[in-house]
């Protein structure tokens, strides 16, 4: 197979995307190296690691990592693979530990990943040049947090997290900083596997307001007794920064209402004034509106429903979905419970909305098995001329959430990263 360069696969001007980006293993492997081993990736919410010794395991690309809070309270991330013979050193997905001991030969590592001891250590002590300090679990290159959200990157040259997120932080604050108490994840994590390319899911949350009313009609009827209203004609936007994308209207509670739980929507309405003071009236009305977002490359969420999730790549045709629920710490237990149950009912694998997405994504991926099908370009041209200047909204702004603008921006960023030999060649956009 001779693939054209990534830049020839995505045509932002005309709004087309080559189907091969959802199929070819060669491109997938390049993604692992140039996107997942290079970008800042979401690895944890600080609330998941409440105390020294708290840990969780996750993946960055297909690399398994441990994220742990040390005795010093510092959160670190390092490969979950023993430098001795490569065995996984932690098989639990989360918990509390004093360290990690490899099952194979008993090398033991601290909460900071450093090699702390070995079974039959005498034999190592007699080996000239053996220095335990050289044999810890490999640390990520950088780790940092933004208001509770911990990100890490394997690339020492990656820009600081603040720059990587750029003005998207202004949008993230809507969910992460609308209350003094900060946020937390409640209820743990549900994981499932979808036979789709990871980008199909990520782009959906980046900017696919269009599908909501159609795909999720049955879910909307089940939870609210009525179809999703038409989104056309409402004031709505797509915005993006560095490939991070948010699409939204300003109806305050459109997403939240899908729980069919009045307590949830009422809480938002009650808080509207307070929120407007904190965030300004515009961002305040985004808090639970019909909207969705993706932090490039693979972390997505739904404001209002408060489902946060990552799309973990598992080969070009499979994605693992890890899903959590974000709430304000200061929320009442009753409302936290309402969010937990609401997300479960709507956006877990058994959720009445989620289940329709997976079906679409699998066949959007699988169709590309055909060589003739794969040779066609897909249409990403909705709203080609919709870019606007906005007095308040940051980043690149487009009118109407019914738009492929965010998807185009997502793939433009994807292209840029795949083409670049290093971060030096990547500019903010």
């Amino acid at each position, binding site marked *: 197979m001779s693939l054209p360069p990534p830049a020839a696969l995505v045509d932002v001007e005309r709004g087309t995307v080559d189907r091969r980006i959802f199929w070819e293993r060669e491109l997938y492997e390049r993604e692992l190296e140039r996107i997942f081993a290079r970008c800042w990736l979401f690895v944890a919410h600080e609330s998941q690691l409440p105390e020294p010794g708290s840990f969780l395991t996750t993946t960055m690309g297909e690399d398994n990592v441990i994220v742990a809070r040390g005795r010093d309270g510092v959160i670190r991330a390092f490969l979950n693979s023993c430098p001795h013979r490569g065995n996984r050193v932690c098989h639990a997905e989360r918990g509390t530990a004093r360290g990690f001991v490899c099952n194979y030969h008993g090398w033991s590592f601290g909460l900071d990943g450093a090699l702390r001891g070995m079974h039959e250590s005498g034999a190592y002590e007699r080996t000239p040049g053996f220095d335990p300090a050289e044999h810890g679990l490999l640390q990520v290159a950088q780790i940092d947090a933004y208001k509770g959200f911990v990100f890490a990157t394997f690339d020492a040259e990656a820009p600081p997290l603040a720059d990587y997120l750029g003005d998207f932080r202004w949008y993230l604050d809507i969910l992460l900083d609308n209350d003094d108490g900060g946020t937390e994840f409640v209820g743990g*994590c549900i994981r499932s596997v979808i036979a789709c390319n990871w980008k199909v899911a990520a782009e959906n949350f980046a900017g696919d307001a269009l599908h909501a009313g159609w795909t999720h009609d049955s879910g909307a*009827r089940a939870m609210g007794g009525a179809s999703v209203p038409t989104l056309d004609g409402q004031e709505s936007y797509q915005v993006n920064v560095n490939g991070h994308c948010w699409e939204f209207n300003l109806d305050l509670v459109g997403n939240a209402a899908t729980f069919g739980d009045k307590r949830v929507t009422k809480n938002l309405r009650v808080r509207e004034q307070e929120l407007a003071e904190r965030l300004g009236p515009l961002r305040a009305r985004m808090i639970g509106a019909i909207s969705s977002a993706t932090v490039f490359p693979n972390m997505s969420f739904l404001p209002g429903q408060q489902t946060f999730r990552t799309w973990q790549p598992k080969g070009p045709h499979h994605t693992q979905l890890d899903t959590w629920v974000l709430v304000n710490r200061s929320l009442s237990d009753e409302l936290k419970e309402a969010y937990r149950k609401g997300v479960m*009912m709507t956006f877990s694998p058994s959720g009445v909305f989620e289940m*329709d997405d997976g079906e679409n994504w699998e066949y959007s991926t699988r169709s590309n098995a055909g060589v003739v099908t794969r040779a066609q370009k897909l249409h990403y041209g909705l709203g080609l001329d919709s870019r606007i200047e906005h007095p308040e909204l940051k980043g690149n702004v487009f009118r109407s959430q019914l738009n492929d603008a965010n998807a185009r921006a997502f793939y433009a960023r994807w292209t840029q990263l795949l083409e670049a030999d290093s971060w030096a060649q990547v500019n903010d956009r």
Partner: protein
Amino acid sequence: MGAGERPVSAELAAAERFLFLEARLLDAERYDEWLALLTDDVHYWVPGVENRNRTDAEGPFAPGRMAHFDDGWTDLQRRIVRFTSETAWSENPPTRHVHVVSNVEVEPAEREDELLVHSLTVVHRGRYEASDEALYGRREDVLRRVEGELRLARRRVILAHNVLPSKNLNTFL
């Protein structure tokens, strides 16, 4: 064998009849009849199963944690609205589910009018041209005698799966 053997108890026989009928209704997507088998105060719970160390006090599952189902009657009824909506595009053509139920055991429950019933469930799924998914779980049910008929008052299904090997769960377990 000696005397004094218990024959199959009427309770066990009734529980099996109940569970096999339930499975048949689910296979046939006869959701309204299925719903009628539940008590009004039913709690239907399929917690997410986490992969935790033995020493971890929090355990692999617990109330208040994420679940596939953590439903009351209204929640279940809502799911059925979705399943039976004509705009549930992904339910057409229909999924072919087979609900295998086995290892049924009956114990007295806390209430006189209830039975504690253990069983296993294997739910196989055929979808379009594919048919390669099966979920395994252990169930603990409470069946209650209501006006002479058994009704499901409580269900707990502990799946053998940590990462759900599927994009979704479009039936009951």
